[in-house]
Each structure stands twice: as C-alpha cells, then as structure tokens.
C-alpha cells in the first residue's frame, strides 16, 4: 500500500530530524561556551562530532547491556 509506505518514510525521516534537533540542543550546550562569534572554532566542531558519536556509543552500549540483563 503506497500510502502506508509514504507515511512510514515520513515517520522515519521525522525521527531522524528530531534526533538531530535533540543532539544539536544537547551538544551545543556542552560544546559552545560563548556566542562571541558567528563561526565554530575547530575545537567546537570536533567537540560536536565527538558528542554525537559518544552519545550514540553510549546508547548502543545501554541497549546491549539491558538485553544482557534480561537474559
């Protein structure tokens, strides 16, 4: 059914968008100290990328750990 496929695609696109909003919100708070310039410093860029990767690594580890607890 094309409508279902369309809605599923929209839903997963929307989930990705919402994750990006959430990560930007958290990582901007952690990585950007002041707003005294319009550009990101190389350190801020690196911090943002690490923040996203570390958050995803933490989440993967938590999901695996919980599956292990259940067994």
């Amino acid at each position, binding site marked *: 059914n094309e409508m279902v496929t369309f809605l599923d695609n929209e839903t997963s696109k929307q989930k990705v968008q919402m994750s990006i909003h959430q990560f930007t919100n958290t*990582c901007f708070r*952690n*990585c950007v100290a002041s707003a005294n310039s319009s550009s990101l410093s190389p*350190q801020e860029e*690196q*911090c943002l990328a*690490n*923040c996203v990767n*570390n*958050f995803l*690594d*933490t*989440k993967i*580890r*938590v*999901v695996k*750990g*919980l599956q292990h*607890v259940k067994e």
Partner: protein
Amino acid sequence: QVQQELALANATELVNNITDNCFQKCLSNPYSDPQPNCVDQCLNKYLKAWNTVSKTYIARIQDPSTSGEI
C-alpha cells in the same frame, strides 16, 4: 496490544534516561574517548537505583496514612 505498547514505551523511556544520565556521568569531557566500562557500571548502578526508588515509592502509595494524598 495495549500492554505491548506500554511495555515498549517503558523500555524506550528507560533506555533514554539511562543514556542521558550515563552520557553525562561518564563523558564529562566530550573530547575524550568513550569509556565502555563506565557505561556498564553506570547502567548497573541506574538499575539498582530504579529498584530503590520503586520500593520507596510503592511503600508510600500503600501506606494508608498518606496514600490518598499522592
């Protein structure tokens, strides 16, 4: 069906709360590499805290002297 959806909602809430808390506690410096051991310890600690909170809260709900007010 209802129970399945609630179980999924609970699991998602638990995963998100543990991830948030353990990300903050284990990665105070976001430049550093992740420390898998810290996340595992933090996860176990969180589950124990969940049990303590759960016991305390349910004891309050079941205490007839205050349960009506909660």
